[in-house]
């Protein structure tokens, strides 16, 4: 009987260790612990060009992450990129004249949306729209313009 008891304990320990391992992967390694799906609100911004922005790219204000991009689609009427962002509902006091711009972070070129609050007294509501946007800077385009301009000046 002693033998089987020991064996049961070891099996129990093994299963517990396995579950702890999986739990560790879920909570500590992945982004599960930072899910904010439930208590967030959506705002929309239209960009002329959203560059390399992806779904789940961070949305930050003053350098702090306050939400993430939830969908990106192309509007076939206005030829603009429609970016929906879900913002943590803790931060529900963004003025309605906030500017959204797409910036590049770090060396590897990960792009994110930066929100620059304006001075308006009224706040953005759920499903609100950001009117003032600044597109992503496309490096090839910028270099092309620079070369074109310097060629013009030489003439």
């Amino acid at each position, binding site marked *: 009987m002693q033998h089987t008891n020991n064996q049961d304990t070891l099996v129990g320990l*093994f299963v517990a260790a*396995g579950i702890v391992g999986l739990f560790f992967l879920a909570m500590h390694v992945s982004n599960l612990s930072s899910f904010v799906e439930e208590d967030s609100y959506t705002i929309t911004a239209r960009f002329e060009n959203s560059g390399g922005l992806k779904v789940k790219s961070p949305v930050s204000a003053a350098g702090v992450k306050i939400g993430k991009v939830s969908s990106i689609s192309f509007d076939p009427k206005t030829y603009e990129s429609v970016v929906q962002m879900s913002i943590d509902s803790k931060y529900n006091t963004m003025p309605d004249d906030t500017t959204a711009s797409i910036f590049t972070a770090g060396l590897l070129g990960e792009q994110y949306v930066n929100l620059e609050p304006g001075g308006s007294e009224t706040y953005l509501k759920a499903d609100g729209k950001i009117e003032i946007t600044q597109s992503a800077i496309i490096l090839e385009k910028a270099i092309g313009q620079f070369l074109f301009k310097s060629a013009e000046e030489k003439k």
Partner: protein
Amino acid sequence: MSQFIQDLGKSTRTSFTKLGRSTYFLLQTISGIFSVLPRPRLLLNQMYSVGVLSFLIITISGLFVGMVLGLQGYYTLSDFGAEETLGVMVAASLVRELGPVVSALLFAGRAGSALTAEIGLMKATEQLSGMEMMAVDPVKRIISPRFLAGLISMPLLAGLFSAVGIIGGQIIGSGLLGVDEGAYWSQMQASIDFHDDIINGFIKSIVFGFVTSWIALFEGYDAIPTSEGVSRATTRTVVNSAFSILGLDFILTALMFGDH
């Protein structure tokens, strides 16, 4: 020439017959699982020999694989000044690929071969026929508990392997090579997706557990009941398991991570 064609046809037919037998065997085993559930003692004993006894080799290998990933990843990433992303590299490669695959290979070598040898020997010493004489179904009594134990143990072992590996990578990365510990974890958490990475790796390990247990049990059950036959069956278990794991891994990766 005609002899060659005859041989070819014969070996093709033999392998198809074997595949058919193994499918029938699998269905029998799965239907036998329902008669294991009311008797958890059978399952518990097998969890011990399949899971607990594989625990040490899995955790130690996981630790070393993680440490090597940390070391190699650091050398490559530091060329680009991107040491901070070491955590992402270690975690992504462990959770998506190395965790399920390497632990399944080790599992096939450690537990699969033991299962084949055990059942092959039972067959050689006519214990299985003895059970049938006593109207005990050997598939329900012997095979199904082992199959279920393998199916449950494999995901747990793979999860442990990945978790220990990530800690190993952290020990080397931030303990020895000076990667910032906060960056190691936060970059990892920002890039590893729960559904895309963790759940897919988990599904992989269940599939590998299923296939490895199936092959090991079938080879044992189907072994020629001599000492040579059992030794050959054990070899086939390890070889076939390794092939199936690696082949399936390719297919599963293409299916799961294809649209990225």
